[in-house]
């Protein structure tokens, strides 16, 4: 049986070598352990010792001095006496090379966030990532704000303050705005929430909380002939989820549970105030605000705001909530607005009756 003479792997990683010379000639007998040829691998010429014995038959035109040969290339045979060399050389084994790694290159449109950041670097004004995000949500241009962060960095609070003060962001419209405030006893409201929290049927107390406030505002509105048009009233509230907005429209026809179910998923302020039953959420808790009166754009311009529910640390004890109504006196008289806010207060203080 003919044994193959092959280019061996010398060391752990050799892939190819440069053939130097045959150390045995055609027809010469080769013993196991004899040096048959030499090859240059990793800059050193190595003699290759035979693993087998037999008469050397050199494969013509393959192993020539100076030729680069892959590991595993058959360059000859060792034959038994009288044996003829195989007619065709077996295919050179495929070296077990690792496939070259290809890294997919994605071609995407430039990210608007990235370009905004690049622009900021150029103008020298910086904002925290969070401030940038909130700016986008409130359509505020943070590059025009006065930074309060270390090293002149615009922080979230800077964005929120500017949105509150006006002057940047949304156009407030032409009319002057008046504000009424009152504080309501929230003991009953808290009791109601505690009941909900204990109930197996309620999955999200916060959703219900928001729905209850909308519902109470709607009931107060129905009791009132103030002229505050439902379609012209937005309700804002600070809850554990942040700041939420809601239109009063349609609130009376839905139950609290239905309203709660409708409140899933934050959406932009703009979507909310265009009249859909949806909320937007901002994380205002970190600011410790009790009330927040943002800019808004409702025809007629009324906004009823429920402040943060201030609970006593002990369950079952007193709690209060701030109520505020902003309105344009050109649209609604002061007395009517005050009457409406008073009705809301009454409803909030006795939610069991007003939701019944």
């Amino acid at each position: 049986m003919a044994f193959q003479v092959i280019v061996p792997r010398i060391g752990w990683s050799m892939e190819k070598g440069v053939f130097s010379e045959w150390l045995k000639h055609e027809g010469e007998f080769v013993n196991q352990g004899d040096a048959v040829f030499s090859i240059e691998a990793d800059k050193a010429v190595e003699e290759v010792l035979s693993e087998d014995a037999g008469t050397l038959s050199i494969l013509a035109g393959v192993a020539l001095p100076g030729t680069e040969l892959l590991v595993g290339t058959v360059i000859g045979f060792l034959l038994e006496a009288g044996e003829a060399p195989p007619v065709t050389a077996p295919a050179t084994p495929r070296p077990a090379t690792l496939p070259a790694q290809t890294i997919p290159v994605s071609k995407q449109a430039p990210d608007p966030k990235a370009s905004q950041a690049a622009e900021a670097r150029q103008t020298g004004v910086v904002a925290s990532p969070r401030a940038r995000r909130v700016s986008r949500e409130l359509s505020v241009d943070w590059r025009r704000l006065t930074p309060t962060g270390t090293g002149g960095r615009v922080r979230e609070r800077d964005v929120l303050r500017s949105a509150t003060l006006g002057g940047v962001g949304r156009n407030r419209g032409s009319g002057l705005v008046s504000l009424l405030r009152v504080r309501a006893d929230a003991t009953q409201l808290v009791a109601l929430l505690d009941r909900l929290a204990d109930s197996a049927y309620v999955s999200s107390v916060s959703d219900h909380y928001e729905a209850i406030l909308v519902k109470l505002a709607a009931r107060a509105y129905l009791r009132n002939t103030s002229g505050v048009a439902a379609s012209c009233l937005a309700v804002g509230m600070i809850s554990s989820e942040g700041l939420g907005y809601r239109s009063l429209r349609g609130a009376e026809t839905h139950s609290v549970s239905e309203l709660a179910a409708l409140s899933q998923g934050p959406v932009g302020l703009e979507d909310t105030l265009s009249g859909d039953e949806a909320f937007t959420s901002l994380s205002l808790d970190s600011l410790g605000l009790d009330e927040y009166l943002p800019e808004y754009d409702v025809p007629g311009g009324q906004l009823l705001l429920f402040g943060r529910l201030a609970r006593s640390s002990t369950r079952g004890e007193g709690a209060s909530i701030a109520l505020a109504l902003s309105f344009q006196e050109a649209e609604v008289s002061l007395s009517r607005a005050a009457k409406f806010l008073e009705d809301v207060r009454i409803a909030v203080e006795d939610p069991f009756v007003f939701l019944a």
Partner: protein
Amino acid sequence: MRELSYIDAAREALSEEMARDPTIFVMGEGIGPRGGNFSTTVGLHAQYGSERLRDTPISERGFTTLCIGAALAGARPVVDAMFVDFALDGISDLVNQASKMRWMSSGRLEVPLVVRACMGVFSSAAAHHSGSYYSFFAHIPGFQVVLPSSPADAKGLLKTALRSRDPVIFLEHRALLATKGPVPDGEYLIPFGQAAIVHEGTDLTLVGLSAMVPKCLEVARTLAAEGITVEVIDPRTVAPLDVATICASVKKTGRLLIVEEDYASCSVAAEIASRVGDESFDDLDAPIRRLHCGFAPAPYSPALEKAMAISTQTILQKTRELLAE
């Protein structure tokens, strides 16, 4: 609920599990009749005998690897290395054998091994008895690395460790051993990879590891009196690491300070910072800050040790600085 010390709570976990599972045994220097240098096994030798509370020669590499072999044969060994500095003698086989065995054997073998040891800069123990080294292990696939910070966690996490199917590195900070707290009776297990929110807040997130957790809590209480609420999170295990809980907190607070008594470079805090940066970039209102011990070996003199350790005061100051950023 009854109160136990941290070390008593851990020992209760060990004893309960040894009673439940006859394949558990402990190896270490002086853990037999003597009950362990840190009282980790007091009273257990009388109950379970020499084969299951095996006093060893000072051959940490030897008995650590022996325990790996014992685990392969179906036992559940506990290496009580006393100081984690000593456990380093066995790190080659922990990494080369224990952590890789499941993978190398394509899931046909497993190493349910617990290596427990004390760690940390405390009481002038100096350069060879104050290391932490958990970041080494957390870097390697195949390990679970546990840092209990309270008596209840010491019990609940050690019980989970003693039922785990993978090697666990369980490190107890010496400053915590005598601390007391409520500990549930009997069956109490805390899953790995679930961070604890030990104090709720909305102004800033403080992540503390091991003995830094009680210090962070103290800072949170101090600031609460000023109307600033800090959320304190204890990851409890650094491998697996619960980044989601930290990110959820940062979503609320926008600010993150990570406190760990270990070197800054290649640390667990660096890993947390990187991952929160990746996942919560748009929630950050300030740079992520880290607080580490100094980059030098632990000293002997109390005057030097003070410079090395992280005090509550330092954490408080760093917290205030970050709140102002």
